[in-house]
């Protein structure tokens, strides 16, 4: 619940306090441990959840080069700088 809602510290405190008051809920020591864990790992956990929700192609790598066309059949292309870009696209993990 904490991870799914990406709770901030206020929400976390309110949530954990409510849990300690429930019958069969957690103790305040357990609440403190959970709070510390969440504070330390929140960003990484959130990033991991985000990455589970991304399934389109991502840009894995990009290389580029600038060439100068010095000679060509068509005179108006002489001395034209050209950027050539190679992009590697793929699903994450592929």
């Amino acid at each position, binding site marked *: 619940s904490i*991870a*799914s*809602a*990406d709770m901030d510290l206020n929400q976390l405190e309110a949530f954990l306090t409510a849990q300690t008051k429930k019958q069969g809920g957690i103790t305040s020591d357990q609440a403190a441990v959970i709070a510390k864990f969440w504070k330390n790992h929140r960003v990484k956990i*959130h990033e991991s*959840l*985000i990455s*589970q*929700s*991304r399934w*389109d*192609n*991502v*840009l894995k790598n*990009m290389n*580029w080069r*600038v060439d*100068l066309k010095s000679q060509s059949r068509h005179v108006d292309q002489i001395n034209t*700088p050209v*950027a050539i*870009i190679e*992009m590697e*696209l793929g699903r994450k993990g592929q």
Partner: protein
Amino acid sequence: VDMKWKLGVAMSSDTCRSLRFPYVAVTLRVADPSGQITDKSFEMSIPQFKNFFRQFKEMAAVLETV
């Protein structure tokens, strides 16, 4: 041949109720040497997009000086 972009925010998903993840989605329309057109789409997180943007800025600077 063409480039389209959009800035989106993924709000929620089956794995996480509160994603709030901004991203840039790009579609490139490319023509291969035979003239065949294909669309290539991909997404970038904001840090990835900043890197993408920086590469293009570098390229533009080099193109100016060549």
